[in-house]
């Protein structure tokens, strides 16, 4: 019996010919990404030895620029660590600032066929690069940085074959909500994507999907390699790599086909995305106080383009705060050069600097009790974006932009498309 893509990556990096579901494997870590929360005084333990400084990336993203004394202290500790071990791949406040998972993509840090760990749950984002990328805890990161290895339990794999083509304003966020609504939790399972639709899907769109797989509780999410993926990495990183294709006789727990032609805008109701979405038409008119587009899942240039297409020539309702946060400062600059930022600000949006920001309720757009928000970000848990008595709906950037105009949840196809 053959192996799935993720099983092959884990086999290769654990020095074994075969791994199978149920195995516990120890793998070499190719890339270890530390971020600002790891350096918080209540978490940080002074690292005395780094196995391989060249494998380490340090990013400040959750609370940048520092929003309070405690985050400023964490960042100061982080800068001292970077200096002590001469970490070259360091993303401080400034021109290379951004959200870790988006920076990993932008700089091609996640090489196909390798292992990447980071102490943030949305690390599965880098699975889009045919990389075994997983969110871990802070102690895992101390272990990976000092010893250069980590462990994984090998789970079964679900294969999704994507067919057809998306028609704007329907986006990968809607495809994700469809999968989460239809199939629910993928806890302790891996997810592998492939199929003919890949030819028409940008790396940004694919990465929205792998990032959101954290919300399925998936172990690893990965895409089958194709020329677009391989060229994307080669343009950004000169290091050699060996991408891993699934075997033809790979053993999948289930194989499911998703026809992108049939997708339509969906909205997840508050508290979870699992088995909890409705067609946008069924929730149209639900009043909102805030609308947010951003995060590691939806802070890309594609997302700025989608929001600008809806907002061009329109005005954000005076009853709604529309906050848009780019994934990196480079994306901000690109969006500025493309004219998207001007369109968004003219429409009444607030465009912030790159950070995780409102997505995790850290800063730049926290909800009060009783308020409702529709978000194109990662997570809609109770209290996620502020007070436990606030509500978070989730939709695509186009659906969020349309809702910001109407002052209540709206169908983007009524504005564009």
């Amino acid at each position, binding site marked *: 019996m053959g192996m799935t893509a993720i099983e092959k990556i884990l086999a290769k990096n654990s020095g074994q010919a075969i791994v199978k579901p149920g195995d516990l494997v120890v793998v070499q870590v190719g890339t270890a990404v530390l971020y600002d929360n790891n350096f918080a005084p209540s978490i940080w333990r002074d690292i005395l030895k780094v196995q391989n400084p060249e494998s380490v990336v340090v990013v400040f993203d959750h609370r940048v620029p520092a929003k309070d004394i405690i985050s400023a202290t964490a960042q100061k500790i982080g800068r001292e660590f970077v200096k002590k071990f001469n970490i070259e791949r360091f993303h401080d406040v400034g021109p290379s600032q951004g959200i870790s998972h988006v920076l990993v993509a932008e700089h091609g840090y996640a090489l196909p066929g390798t292992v990447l760990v980071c102490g943030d749950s949305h690390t599965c984002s880098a699975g889009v690069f045919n990389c075994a990328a997983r969110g871990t805890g802070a*102690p895992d990161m*101390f272990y990976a940085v000092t010893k250069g290895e980590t462990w994984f339990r090998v789970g079964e794999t679900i294969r999704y074959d994507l067919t057809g083509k998306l028609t704007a304003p329907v986006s990968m966020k809607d495809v994700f909500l469809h999968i989460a609504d239809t199939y629910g*939790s993928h806890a302790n399972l891996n997810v592998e994507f492939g199929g003919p639709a890949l030819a028409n899907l940008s790396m940004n769109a694919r990465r929205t999907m792998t990032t959101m797989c954290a919300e399925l509780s998936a172990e690893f999410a990965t895409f089958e390699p194709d020329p677009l993926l391989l060229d994307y990495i080669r343009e950004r990183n000169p290091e050699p790599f060996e991408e891993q294709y699934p075997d033809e006789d790979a053993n999948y727990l289930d194989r499911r086909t998703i026809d992108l032609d049939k997708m339509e805008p969906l909205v997840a109701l508050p508290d979870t995305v699992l088995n909890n979405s409705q067609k946008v038409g069924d929730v149209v008119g639900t009043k909102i106080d805030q609308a947010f587009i951003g995060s590691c899942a939806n802070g890309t240039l594609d997302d700025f383009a989608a929001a600008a297409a809806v907002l061009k020539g329109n005005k954000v309702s005076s009853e709604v705060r529309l906050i848009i946060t780019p994934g990196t400062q480079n994306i901000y600059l690109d969006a500025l050069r493309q004219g998207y930022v001007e369109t968004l600000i003219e429409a009444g949006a607030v465009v912030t600097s790159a950070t995780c920001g409102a997505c995790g309720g850290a800063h730049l757009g926290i909800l009060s009790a009783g308020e409702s928000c529709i978000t194109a970000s990662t997570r809609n848990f*109770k209290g996620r974006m502020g007070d436990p008595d606030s509500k978070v709906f989730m939709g695509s950037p186009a659906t969020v932009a349309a809702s910001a105009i109407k002052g209540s949840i709206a169908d983007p196809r009524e504005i564009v498309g």
Partner: protein
Amino acid sequence: MEFTGKTWKFGDNINTDLILPGRAQLFTEEEQLRCVFEANRPGWIDEVAKGDILIGGFNFGMGSSRPAARSLRNTGLTCMIAESINGLFYRNCVNWGFLALECEGISTAIEEGDEVQVSFEDFKVKNNRTGKTLQARAIPDVLLNTMKAGGVLPLLESEGLIAAPV
């Protein structure tokens, strides 16, 4: 290693934002402890006692990588038993040294307040009220030893790789 304790029961898909809210992420351990389950079960933190045992449903601990397992350990709970534990949360249980078992049928076999007896030798869980015994999923030795030793930080400290806590 065996424990007997009073149970507190929680449902399916209990997420890390409930265990440790985002606003508390950078707080001290003591401050974080005060926020555990504040949104879904306010006041619980004052009721839970040292030696108690938490019972969870499916996919316990879904969500973020934050040190939520450490906060549960700090409540004085000796361990937790759930139908299934989220993969990332399970890692954090191992690495922060919080004993955690996956046991099919646990959420229907236990009513809140029941006294249970848990063995981390043969992974059997007994409800002392009903007398019913369930077999939990075995924990691989290497992970169990790390859990019992208080997680990976003491190990890294003993190997001179990280400094002692300040």
